[in-house]
């Protein structure tokens, strides 16, 4: 176990970066960015995990009776999941505009357009 979760997070991040760099379609690139984002969630939650602990919610657990996992990283991740989705939406809106103005969503064709 040890470092496996961290390595998986690193792998997801690098895979997303590779997809971003080699993408031939801006919509696909935005999808790859979403993959990169999920790597940070995996990393954060892996850092906060504690063996044999339960979720930091005390509505049905007596406080102090069991160890709980780190709630701070969960709060960070939670807000970013939702806010990240709206930022993805903003990027997609930009893609729609690019396709309207230039008639293509291929980044290579776009850079040729600009010279």
């Amino acid at each position: 176990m040890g470092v496996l979760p961290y390595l998986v997070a690193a792998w997801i991040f690098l895979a997303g970066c590779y997809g971003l760099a080699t993408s031939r379609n801006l919509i696909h690139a935005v999808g790859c960015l979403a993959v990169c984002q999920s790597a940070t969630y995996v990393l954060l939650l892996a850092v906060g995990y504690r063996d044999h602990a339960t979720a930091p919610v005390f509505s049905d657990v007596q406080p102090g009776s069991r160890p709980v996992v780190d709630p701070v990283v969960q709060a960070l991740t939670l807000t970013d999941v939702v806010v990240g989705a709206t930022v993805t939406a903003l990027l997609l809106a930009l893609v729609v505009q690019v396709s309207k103005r230039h008639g293509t969503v291929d980044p290579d064709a776009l850079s040729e357009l600009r010279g």
Partner: protein
Amino acid sequence: MSRRARLWLVAVGGGALAALLVAACLDLPAFGGTRHPYGDRAVRESLARHTANTIASINFDQRAFDTLGEISILFAAVLGCVVLLRQTRDEHRARPEPEPVALPVRRYALAVLPVALLTGLYVIAHGQLSPGGGFQGGVVAATSLHLLYLGADYRALERIRPVGLYEVGDALAVSAYLVTGIAGLIGGTAFLANTLLPYGTFNTLSSGGTVPLLNAAVGMEVACAVVVLLARFLDQAVEIEEGK
């Protein structure tokens, strides 16, 4: 830059980054360790303020200022989408013809819609007690409304969803968050400090001081934001066409 050169650059940069990441991973505290100083303190604070869900306590009390930043990003992103996806002068609207929907799909969508909407509202309302809260519940409630598009048609969706109203709701919710913060400044001790209301009985709906208020404001904002976003994208995908 040619494709080949770019691939090489990606390979070199990616390789170096991978090496650094692996080196960093090997130095991190082992997975599942018992040392979580911030987490332990956050749990203690949350229990002292009678908030059963520690994560809600962190988001809407201990790090409420950070959440203000997050919802500002959310608000700005939605504003950007609305501006980018508005109908321009060289476009026109083409009313889509209502298309027949298979009966089982229609029945299922219409049956699930109220359940999903209620679940979303429940998740928002119980944010300070059980897993959930404004961020999650808002998304669930807003996406559930769009089952109507599956169950009926686009026009039915437009009737129950006056986008302008939701835009106003979005702005109102952000203002409500700010006002609660300023009320803390006037009536209590500091901006967004949770000293205004009594903490209440642990594990009841009204516990946690200002946490339920801020939670509700965020829930409203996220729900309105998602409805507005989906409306703009649906508009672009279904209705707006080029040419006069």
